[in-house]
């Protein structure tokens, strides 16, 4: 039989390894996780707002929405996958790629597209000297929001603060 002190020490070690320290992040309920990720895509920063990270939510909203609006103001173009019967993929791949990057900004893209912003035909839009700058900022907004969505998921899953 082990002495009493040794037994206590062994048990303490066993439970310390398995228990979650008080200040460690914990996972949110599944409904809140789903809401956070969905809202994070729709409105930049909204996912963090749902998880109680107000400061970061405001920073993400201002930065990503600002980049998107700035890009539109510089005559950037909102891409939609264009059918191309001659391509093996049946779509012009570069438009699919641009569309994927831009749709990351969620409602910014959808609302602007529906309202007709940034949808001028490409030859007409490309005549603007700031066309490529505009595209770059719109793409930046979409890609950064993908990163923010992943961050919201990590926080919701308890992987980070």
């Amino acid at each position, binding site marked *: 039989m082990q002495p009493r002190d040794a037994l206590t020490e062994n048990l303490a070690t066993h439970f310390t390894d398995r228990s979650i320290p008080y200040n460690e992040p914990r996972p949110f309920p599944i409904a809140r996780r789903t809401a956070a990720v969905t809202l994070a895509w729709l409105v930049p920063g909204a996912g963090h707002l749902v998880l109680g990270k107000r400061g970061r939510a405001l*920073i*993400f909203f201002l*930065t990503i929405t600002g980049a998107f609006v*700035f890009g539109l103001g510089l005559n950037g173009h909102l891409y939609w996958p264009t059918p191309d019967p001659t391509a093996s993929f049946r779509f012009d791949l570069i438009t699919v790629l641009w569309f994927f990057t831009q749709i990351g900004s969620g409602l910014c893209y959808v609302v602007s597209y529906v309202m007709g912003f940034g949808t001028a035909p490409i030859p007409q839009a490309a005549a603007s000297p700031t066309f490529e700058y505009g595209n*770059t900022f719109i793409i930046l907004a979409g890609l950064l929001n993908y990163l*923010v969505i992943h961050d919201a998921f990590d926080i919701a899953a308890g992987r980070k*603060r």
Partner: protein
Amino acid sequence: MHVLMMSMYAAMAAVVLAAVDPKSDTTRQRVLHGLKIFGSFLGIGLILSWVLFPIPW
């Protein structure tokens, strides 16, 4: 114009990348990390432009 656009791009990217950095726990660490990213963007951009300038195509 181009440097201004590059700076704005670097600033926006640096703000978000610093805010999502999992290794920074305090605001000070995040700000320092953001400044490093901003400087890296600008520095690498300027070096690349200097290296690529003589290439004719």
